[in-house]
């Protein structure tokens, strides 16, 4: 910025030194592959493995040919449900826990926080297996538990049923990741000055009114950010379904989401062999979905929710 002009006239080697290594790796292994994928989606391969330009025909197949479009729309719809469940369950619970944790002079607050956040640290794969075991009718631990609290008749092999496997998986994921909205919202709540809360108490509002009228509006930007993080993570999810239900996302693709569809398309499964170019096309569509979400957030949601200077 403020360097002597003698340095500025020479080639700025130091900038290159600082920037080049990181940038090189980032561009080679992130930017280029992404662009290359978008490009690859426009090609097809013939029987000999020869690639040729095919325009948008991959996308036509994917969106219009029943053999491809059915799984695609199924996965997209499932993924949307997956996201909606997170928004309706994970974020409200996170908000609720954060509100409790930020009660003034609460003892053990740190301990609760640390423990509740613990599952978030573990690998999704591990968590998937843990719940697979816990919900397994063979082991019967959940069934036994439900009987002990008088709800035994409601037990079912939830993960194995078409009607409930996706919801169950989503709830497992909610259980694991509730710590993230909790932490971020908690931090936002801590940054609200105490005086503001005191002022609203003096103004006569009870705890609920203070939360609703003062705290919530002030943490709205954080909730917006949590939502977009959830969106990106959900439409990029793969591990949980893969670990619990395999690449086929059974039963009968009822738990198929974009990540598993992408994996199957790319690597093939059972009778169908994998296709690099079709895989690239699916990835491109995922990219577009995420891009639209992020853009909506940046240009609509974030604009509306001004950050209030506290």
């Amino acid at each position, binding site marked *: 910025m403020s360097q002597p002009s003698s340095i500025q006239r020479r080639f*700025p080697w130091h900038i290159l030194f600082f920037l080049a290594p990181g940038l090189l790796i980032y561009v080679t292994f992130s930017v280029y592959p992404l662009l290359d994928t978008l490009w690859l989606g426009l090609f097809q391969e013939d029987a000999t493995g020869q690639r040729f330009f095919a325009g948008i025909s991959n996308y036509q197949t994917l969106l219009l040919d029943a053999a491809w479009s059915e799984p695609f729309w199924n996965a997209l719809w499932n993924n949307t449900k997956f996201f909606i469940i997170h928004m309706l369950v994970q974020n409200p619970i996170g908000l609720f826990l954060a509100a409790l944790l930020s009660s003034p002079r609460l003892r053990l607050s740190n301990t609760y926080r*640390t423990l509740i956040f613990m*599952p978030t640290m573990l690998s999704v794969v591990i968590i998937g297996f843990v719940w697979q075991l816990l919900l397994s009718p063979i082991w019967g631990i959940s069934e036994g538990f439900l009987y002990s609290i008088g709800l035994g008749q409601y037990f079912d092999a939830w993960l194995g049923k078409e009607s409930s496997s996706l919801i169950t998986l989503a709830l497992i994921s909610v259980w694991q990741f509730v710590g993230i909205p909790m932490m971020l919202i908690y931090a936002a709540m801590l*940054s609200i000055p105490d005086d503001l809360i005191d002022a609203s108490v003096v103004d006569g509002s009870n705890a609920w009114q203070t939360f609703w009228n003062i705290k919530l509006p002030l943490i709205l930007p954080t909730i917006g*950010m949590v939502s977009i993080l959830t969106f990106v993570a959900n439409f990029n999810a793969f591990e949980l379904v893969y670990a619990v239900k395999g690449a086929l996302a059974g039963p009968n693709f009822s738990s198929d989401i974009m990540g598993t569809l992408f994996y199957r398309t790319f690597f093939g499964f059972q009778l169908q062999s994998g296709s690099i170019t079709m895989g690239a096309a699916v990835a491109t569509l995922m990219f577009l979905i995420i891009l639209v979400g992020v853009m909506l957030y940046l240009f609509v949601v974030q604009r509306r929710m001004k950050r209030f200077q506290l």
Partner: protein
Amino acid sequence: MISLPGLKHNTGKTLMTHAVLLTYTVIALFPILVIIVNAFKSRKAIFKDPLALPTLDSFSLEGFEQVLGRADFGLYFGNSMIVTLVSLFFVLLLGAMAAWALTEYKFRGNLFLAVLIAMGIMIPIRLGTVSILNLMASLDLVNTLTALVLVYIAQGLPLAVFILSEFIRQVPKELKEAARCDNVSEYKIFFTIILPLIRPAMATVAVFTMIPIWNDLWFPLILAPGESTQTITLGVQQFIGQYVTDWNAVLSSLTLAIVPVLVLYVIFSRQLIRGLTSGAVK
């Protein structure tokens, strides 16, 4: 006591708060504890009374013996360690260097590069997997840990640059200007003044970089599925896929994957949570 009514009211509320938080804590921990506890029981005891603690009678390490006999968990663990630490080192170093260059120097293309890197925070690198695999194949890096490290560096850099830039911007101008007046080189300013100053931010970045790498299944599965390069996450996944019906083995392998992480978590939870809740990540 005159103020008793008021106090009582508050005590009731506090009790409720504790009750709810405690309940949720149990919900969060119970499933994990059940797995760990049962890993130390004999097959019969696992099924007879899953919620009981292991007794002298039911205590058994057979699961662990099988796991350690059939799969090389030590190797997997070592692979994960190497990949995570090496990636972390480079993400921190290269990330700090890039953040410094982007915030400190004005040059053509500065803004473009900043935006390009910022995009990487939101757009998952996974979407480029098809080409990454091609690329690794042509570089002859498939089934090497190097492939994983390279991808993870690319994955971790954007957030690292973002967070570290925020911190570098807060370093007082006077420090740098004083050094420049003394004719200290730009390299020395960075390595001896800036790097030490942004150490706290590095801790935050480390947390955000490390966890996703350690827990990742996708890239190990695709880029390095070979027996000798499996990470712990992939190893456990493959192992359990193979021995689904062997409950002792499954429970033990899960325990082996969970416990080290939990131990590390308990040790570092303070820093980690401070990192998560610090203002740097908005």
